[in-house]
């Protein structure tokens, strides 16, 4: 049995408290008046030089869901536009300041949402990985089942938090939740049968309910199998896992449309669900590997050997490449076809998010590729830890890149709101996961494959 060490508990609680303070102060500071924003903008304009003070340009860049209409309009009356730009400068100034005011305010919600989603996604990825191991009747992994079960304990609270933030933030994150916006937007009106609040909530509850049910029932059978005489619990767990995977394939994809893609309600990508799936899968596997290394360093999990670590590192390596494959497939098709309503997604990211957008490819692809390519390095714990931390940061930035451009435009930064939110949910994640780890023996000794798993060697 694992006992939750006090040092770790205190560390997690400190994270939660500091994170909560940071988030709260972020929200309080974000209540700015229009006049404050104008002062900020004037200061920025004096720093950045005259070309940056062009308000019209900023509006077009800043708000991705307006880009299509704006650019179309701009194309129609480009001559007129140039003439009237000076005349309407005063009007634009006000409009722009108000727009920036919204973005500054949105940033608090978005930062909170990104971090909440990131930790929920880790848990969901581990749940899928766990179900795959069960359904495939994998012989190598049963010794790490209890670690996976502990991580998935966070899924229910984590997913409810994500849903809660989504509803609480409402139009701050999801413009389609604002009736005022929908009234003037034909594209969103056409999607209203899917993108409306009641149906959004029902769907979310179906997703969360299904995942949590599988998590609950598979855990129940896994515990029952420890003391069972025969393999009937294992067989039931196997059947539920196979069924869950079918449910998961559909719901994880729909969840990514609902919870992420709909922040840009005009834009869509058909492989978005797979892309988010790759992200959650690799983050989940990475967290399993990091937790195993941590627990082994504390003298637990003596039955986990370096071949298990090697296999997890292989998955980290392989799924990182899979993520890149999907990232690039999505990017290249849209870049190549260059259709205005699609390509605006990447235009905003490359113009305003150059560093996180391309930095994420280095962190999620180039770095793990080079570090984890050598077979021997995959069994050296500190190498895996190093690669794992970079992968996790990279996938946080991945989520960041999905949410931020639609909500805060070019007003992004990784500052107190973002870091505090990560601390808040990271601390909560640690508390719940390590609490769940104390609830059952660390070895699923009744699993019919446990003996094989203990003797697993490469």
């Amino acid at each position, binding site marked *: 049995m694992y006992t939750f060490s006090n040092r770790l508990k205190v560390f997690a609680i400190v994270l939660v408290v500091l994170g909560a303070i940071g988030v709260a102060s972020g929200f309080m500071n974000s209540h700015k008046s229009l006049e404050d924003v104008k002062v900020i903008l004037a200061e920025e304009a004096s720093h950045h030089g005259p070309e940056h003070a062009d308000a019209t340009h900023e509006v077009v860049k800043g708000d991705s869901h307006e880009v299509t209409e704006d650019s179309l309009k701009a194309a129609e009356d480009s001559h007129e536009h140039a003439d009237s730009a000076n005349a309407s400068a005063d009007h634009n100034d006000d409009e722009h300041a108000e727009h920036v005011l919204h973005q500054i305010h949105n940033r608090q919600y978005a930062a909170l949402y990104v971090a909440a989603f990131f930790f929920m996604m880790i848990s969901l990825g581990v749940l899928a990985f766990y179900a795959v191991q069960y359904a495939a009747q994998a012989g190598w992994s049963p010794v790490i089942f209890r670690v996976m079960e502990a991580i998935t304990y966070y899924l229910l609270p984590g997913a409810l938090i994500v849903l809660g933030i989504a509803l609480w933030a409402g139009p701050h994150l999801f413009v389609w939740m604002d009736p005022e916006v929908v009234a003037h937007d034909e594209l969103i009106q056409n999607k209203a049968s899917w993108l409306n609040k009641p149906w959004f909530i029902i769907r979310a509850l179906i997703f969360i309910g299904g995942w949590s049910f599988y998590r609950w029932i598979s855990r129940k059978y896994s515990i029952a199998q420890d003391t069972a005489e025969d393999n009937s619990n294992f067989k039931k767990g196997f059947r539920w896992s196979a069924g869950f995977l079918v449910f998961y394939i559909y719901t994880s994809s729909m969840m990514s449309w609902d919870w992420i893609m709909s922040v840009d309600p005009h834009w869509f990508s058909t492989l978005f669900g797979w892309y988010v799936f790759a992200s959650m899968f690799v983050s989940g596997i990475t967290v399993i590997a990091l937790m195993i290394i941590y627990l082994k360093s504390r003298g637990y999990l003596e039955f986990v050997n370096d071949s298990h670590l090697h296999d997890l590192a292989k998955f980290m390596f392989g799924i990182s490449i899979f993520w890149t494959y999907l990232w*690039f497939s999505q990017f*290249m098709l849209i870049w*190549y*076809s*260059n259709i205005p309503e699609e390509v605006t997604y990447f235009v905003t990211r490359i113009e305003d998010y150059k560093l996180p957008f391309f930095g994420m490819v280095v962190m999620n692809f180039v770095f793990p590729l080079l570090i984890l390519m050598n*077979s021997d390095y995959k069994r050296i714990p500190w190498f895996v830890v190093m690669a794992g931390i970079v992968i996790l940061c990279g996938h946080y930035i991945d989520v960041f890149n999905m949410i931020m451009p639609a909500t805060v435009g070019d007003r992004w930064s990784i500052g107190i709101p973002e870091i505090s939110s990560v601390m808040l949910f990271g601390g909560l994640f640690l508390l719940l996961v390590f609490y769940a780890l104390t609830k059952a023996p660390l070895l699923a000794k009744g699993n019919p494959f446990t003996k094989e798993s203990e003797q697993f060697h490469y």
Partner: protein
Amino acid sequence: MEPSKVIQAMYTDDDVLMSAVKKVKAEKHHIEEIYTPFPVHGLDKAMGLAPTRIAITSFMYGCVGLIVAILMMKFIMIDDWPQDIGGKPSFSYMENMPAFVPIMFELTVFFAAHLMVITFYLRSKMWPFKKAENPDPRTTDDHFLMEIGVHGNEKELTRFLKETGAVEINLIDKAH
């Protein structure tokens, strides 16, 4: 120096073979070669063979493939015959680069895979129409053969190998 006489011990199970190899190594006998019908996991480690370097060659071949793809696409699509494809009449390599990534990927894999196989054949001294070195055709079916050099100790070696689970032991004179 290769011994003129070898003992060939036949086994019918890979697990028995593995434990026999470990015992033979523990007794400090030199294993000349082992012939198996399928790759036996961990056999190379048990025999004490030097780790394979084929992975390193594979990486280098992959790099060659990547470079070939980069230069080839530059020559074909930018220098030699630039074309306007999908409204991208750009004469810059970087601005067209994403379209070349699939080709870079494919040629990396192509070079790594093919050259690695060819390297493996060359390194194992295998080429078309070469006479098989396999001493016993049963090793292509269901038997495992271990070849051990004899240095005037055939009697005790035979007895020892019998104990390790060999089903058949032959003394072969390799002197020409």
